[in-house]
C-alpha cells in the first residue's frame, strides 16, 4: 500500500511539472476560434468562423479596404465595367504564384468560378457550394489572355464587386483542386500571406508565413487557430496564456479584460442588424401606427446597455451604419417614447391586443435572444400590448419563421450579417421576396417605391449613386416600420498586450498579415 501511494505521488509530481504549462512560442500567434472549421475550401463553407482562417490563406480579385466595407484591388490591379453594367473586365496582378508554385492567372480565376457555378465542370463534384448563389448572375467567365479575365453577367448586378470581396470569391489553385479533389478543403492552396501547414482535427489549424507573398511576407512566422467552443473556456485560456487573441468575447468578461492592462480589447460595429419581423399582413401589425408604436415602445438603449452590456449600438433602419457609403446617419433611431406609443395604439384601436412572439433560443448573430425578448415583452406590456413568447431551438426556429408568419405569429426575432447593403433589403423587404417566392420577407412587407429603388440600386454601378438610393430606402422603410429596428452588434476581440497591429474589420474577417507579437 505504501509503495503504491508513493508511486502515485511520484506520478502526480511528474504530471504537474513535466511539460511546460501553456506558454505560446514567440512569433507565432495563437487564435481562439469559436468552432472547428468545416473545411478550408473557400467555396464550400458558409461560417464566419471558417472565413477568418481563409482570408489569410487566399486572396480574391478584390477585397474590403482596411477598416471599411469599400472594395479595393487585390489580385486584380484594376477593372472596367461596361456601360450597361453587365461586363466586368479585370486586369490581374502579374507574377503572382500559388503556394504550390503554380502560376496565378486568368485561367485560375475562370477555374475557380466554373468549378462553383458550372454543373458540367469536371470538378463541380468537389462541392457542394452552398453560397454559389452569390454569383448566380454570372453568365460566363472568360480568360481573355493570361492577365485579363472577363465576367459576363445575365443582368446588371451592382453588388457583384462586394460579393467578389466576400470569402466565397477567394481564388483557389486549380492544380491543388485537381490533385486533392473532394479533400481540397483539407489541403488548401491559395496565394495568401500565409500557407497551410497542418490541421490536427479538434485541436488546431496551423498556417505559416508565405515567404513569396506578392505583397511582402507577413511579420508573424505562424498562426495557430484553436477551436474552443465554450466561451467561458475561451476566456480561461486567454487568462491562462493559452491563446494570444480571441474573438466573440462574452459581454460579462469584456469588462474584466478592459480593467486588466495585460490585455487589449477591440470593438467595432459591424454590418449586422437585430430586428423584429412584424406581420404586416394580418393582426394588429397590419396597421402602420401599431408597427411604429412598437418601435417607440421598446427601450433600445436599455436593451443595448443592460441586456447586451454595451456590445451593440442602437439600430435606425434596415441598413447598418457600418455601410458608411450607403448610410450617412441622417435617419435617426426611433426614440423611446411610451406615451407616443400608447397614443398610436389607441388611435389604431389595438389596446390590450395579444401578440404571438416567436423567439429563438440561440443562433448565429442572435446575441441574447431570450433575455432580449423578455425585456421587449415587458416594454410592450407598459404600452398595453400582451406579447406571448414562444421559443424554439435555432434550426426549428428558422424552419418556422422563413416560410412566413401568416397564421402563426405577429412578430419574430431575426438577425442578419451581410457584406453589401443590397443583401438584406433585397432578400427580405421586397414584394417579390415573399416566402412563397423564395425570399425572406416573412412579414409580407410591400411598398412599390422600395421595390423600385432596390431594383435600381442593383443596376447602377456608380457607388455614390447607389448610396443615395439606399439612403432613400432607409428613410421609407424606417417610416413604414415593417420591422422593429433594435440593435447593430459590435464585434469584439481581446488580445494580450504583446500583440500589435491588429484591427477588427467591419466585414468580421480576421486579417493577420500586419500583426506582430513582441
Amino acid at each position: 500500500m505504501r509503495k503504491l501511494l508513493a508511486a502515485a505521488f511520484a506520478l502526480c509530481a511528474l504530471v504537474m511539472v513535466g511539460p511546460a504549462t501553456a506558454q505560446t512560442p514567440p512569433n507565432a500567434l495563437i487564435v481562439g476560434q469559436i468552432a472547428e472549421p468545416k473545411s478550408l475550401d473557400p467555396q464550400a463553407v458558409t461560417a464566419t468562423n471558417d472565413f477568418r482562417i481563409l482570408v489569410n490563406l487566399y486572396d480574391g480579385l478584390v477585397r474590403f479596404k482596411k477598416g471599411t466595407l469599400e472594395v479595393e484591388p487585390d489580385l486584380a490591379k484594376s477593372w472596367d465595367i461596361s456601360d450597361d453594367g453587365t461586363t466586368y473586365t479585370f486586369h490581374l496582378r502579374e507574377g503572382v504564384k500559388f503556394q504550390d508554385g503554380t502560376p496565378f492567372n486568368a485561367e485560375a480565376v475562370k477555374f475557380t468560378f466554373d468549378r462553383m457555378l458550372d454543373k458540367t465542370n469536371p470538378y463541380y463534384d468537389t462541392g457542394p457550394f452552398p453560397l454559389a448563389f452569390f454569383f448566380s448572375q454570372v453568365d460566363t467567365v472568360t480568360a481573355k489572355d493570361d492577365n485579363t479575365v472577363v465576367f459576363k453577367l445575365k443582368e446588371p448586378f451592382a453588388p457583384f464587386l462586394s460579393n467578389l470581396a466576400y470569402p466565397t470569391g477567394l481564388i483557389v489553385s486549380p492544380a491543388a483542386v485537381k490533385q486533392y479533389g473532394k479533400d481540397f478543403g483539407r489541403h488548401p492552396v491559395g496565394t495568401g500571406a500565409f500557407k497551410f501547414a497542418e490541421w490536427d482535427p479538434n485541436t488546431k489549424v496551423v498556417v505559416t508565413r508565405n515567404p513569396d507573398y506578392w505583397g511582402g511576407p507577413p511579420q508573424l512566422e505562424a498562426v495557430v487557430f484553436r477551436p474552443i467552443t465554450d466561451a467561458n473556456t475561451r476566456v480561461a485560456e486567454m487568462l491562462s496564456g493559452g491563446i494570444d487573441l480571441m474573438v466573440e468575447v462574452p459581454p460579462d468578461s469584456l469588462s474584466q479584460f478592459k480593467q486588466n492592462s495585460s490585455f487589449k480589447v477591440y470593438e467595432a460595429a459591424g454590418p449586422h442588424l437585430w430586428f423584429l419581423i412584424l406581420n404586416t399582413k394580418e393582426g394588429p401589425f397590419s396597421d402602420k401606427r401599431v408597427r411604429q408604436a412598437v418601435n417607440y415602445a421598446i427601450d433600445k438603449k436599455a436593451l443595448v446597455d443592460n441586456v447586451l452590456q454595451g456590445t451593440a449600438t442602437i439600430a435606425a433602419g434596415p441598413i447598418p451604419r457600418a455601410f458608411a457609403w450607403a448610410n450617412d446617419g441622417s435617419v435617426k433611431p426611433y426614440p423611446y417614447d411610451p406615451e407616443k406609443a400608447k397614443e398610436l395604439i389607441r388611435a389604431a384601436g389595438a389596446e390590450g391586443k395579444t401578440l404571438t412572439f416567436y423567439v429563438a433560443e440561440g443562433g448565429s448573430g442572435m446575441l441574447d435572444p431570450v433575455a432580449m425578448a423578455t425585456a421587449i415583452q415587458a416594454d410592450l406590456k407598459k404600452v398595453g400590448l400582451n406579447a406571448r413568447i414562444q421559443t424554439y431551438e435555432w434550426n426549428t426556429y428558422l424552419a418556422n419563421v422563413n416560410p412566413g408568419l401568416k397564421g402563426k405569429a405577429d412578430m419574430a426575432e431575426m438577425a442578419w450579417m451581410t457584406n453589401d447593403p443590397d443583401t438584406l433589403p433585397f432578400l427580405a423587404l421586397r414584394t417579390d421576396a415573399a416566402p412563397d417566392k423564395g425570399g425572406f420577407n416573412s412579414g409580407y412587407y410591400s411598398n412599390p417605391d422600395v421595390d423600385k429603388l432596390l431594383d435600381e440600386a442593383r443596376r447602377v454601378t456608380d457607388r455614390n449613386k447607389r448610396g443615395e438610393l439606399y439612403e432613400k430606402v432607409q428613410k421609407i422603410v424606417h417610416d413604414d416600420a415593417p420591422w422593429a429596428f433594435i440593435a447593430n452588434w459590435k464585434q469584439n476581440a481581446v488580445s494580450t498586450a504583446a500583440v500589435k497591429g491588429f484591427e477588427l474589420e467591419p466585414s468580421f474577417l480576421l486579417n493577420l498579415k500586419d500583426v506582430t507579437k513582441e
Partner: protein
Amino acid sequence: MTATVAKRLLTAIPVLFGLSIIVFLMIALIPGDPATAILGSYATPENVARLNASLGLDQSLPQQYLAWITGVLHGDFGRSYALNRPVIDIVLERFSATLLLAGASLLLATVFGLLAGIVSAVRQFGLADKVITLIVLIGISMPSFWLGLLLILFFAVKIRLFPASGMVAIYGGGGPLDILHHLVLPAVTLALVATGVIARLTRTAMLEVLRQDYIRTARAKGLTERRVVYRHAFKAALVSIIPVIGIQAGFVLGGAVYVETVFQWPGIGAMLVNAISQRDILLVQGGVLVVAAAYVLFNLLADICQTLLDPRLK
C-alpha cells in the same frame, strides 16, 4: 461461459439495429435539415432545395435509410455533411479520446470510491465517516460543468499548474506525459459524481457484510482487522458493487458530454451535440452506434466480472 458471451453479443445486434432506426427517425422528424443548418441566414427554400439535392437528401426517408444501412454493412458509414470527412474517421478519432477520458475517470472513481466506502464502513459514525459522507454528498450534488469551470479557474488561470483546455499542447505536444497533463482536470471533474455513487454503495454493501456471522468468526479466529476487512468482507461486498461500477461506466460515457465541452476535450460527446444541432444525420448515426455498442460491451464485461466473483451466478 463462451456460449453465454456469444449469446449476449448476438442479442446486441437487433438492439443496435433498432436503435439506428429510432435515431434516424428522430433526426428526420425534428424540424430543420442539414441544408438549413449549413446555409443559416441564407436558407431560402430555393437554396435549401438545391443544397439538399446535392447532399442526396431529396430522396424518401426509407430510401435514405436503406442507402445508409447498406453502406454500413459494407463498412461505409458515409460522409459527414458538416465536416466533409468520412464519418468513420471522425467517430473513431473522437471515440478514442472519450474512451481515454472515461477510462481514466472510471479508474479514479473506482479506486477512490472503493477506498472511501470501505473506510466509511469500517469507521461507521466516526469522524472519517462523517467527513467522507459530507464530501461524497457535495460530489454527487455538484454539476460537473460548474465544477470544471472552478477547477479551470483555480488550477489553470490562478496557479497555472494544468492547461485550461484541449488534449495536447499546441507545440511539441502529443507525448503520453503531455496527454496525462491535459487529462488530469477533466478526468477529476468527470470522476467526482461516479466516485460519490460508488463510495455510498460500497459503504452500504460493506456494512451489510460486516454484520454477517462469518465476519465475527473470522475475527474470533484472531485474523488481523485488515485481513478481515479486505479479504473476507470486501470480496463479498464486491459482488453487489461491480454492477454499480458497470452502470457508472455508462454514466461517465454520457457525462463526458458536458466535461468535453467545458474542457474542449476532442471526444465523441461534444461531437454528437454539434452533429445534432447541425442535423448531420450520418455523423449522429455513426456516433450513437459506437456509443451504444460500447454500453452493451461495458455491461457485458460487468456481468462477466460478477459471474467470476460469485459462483452462485454461474
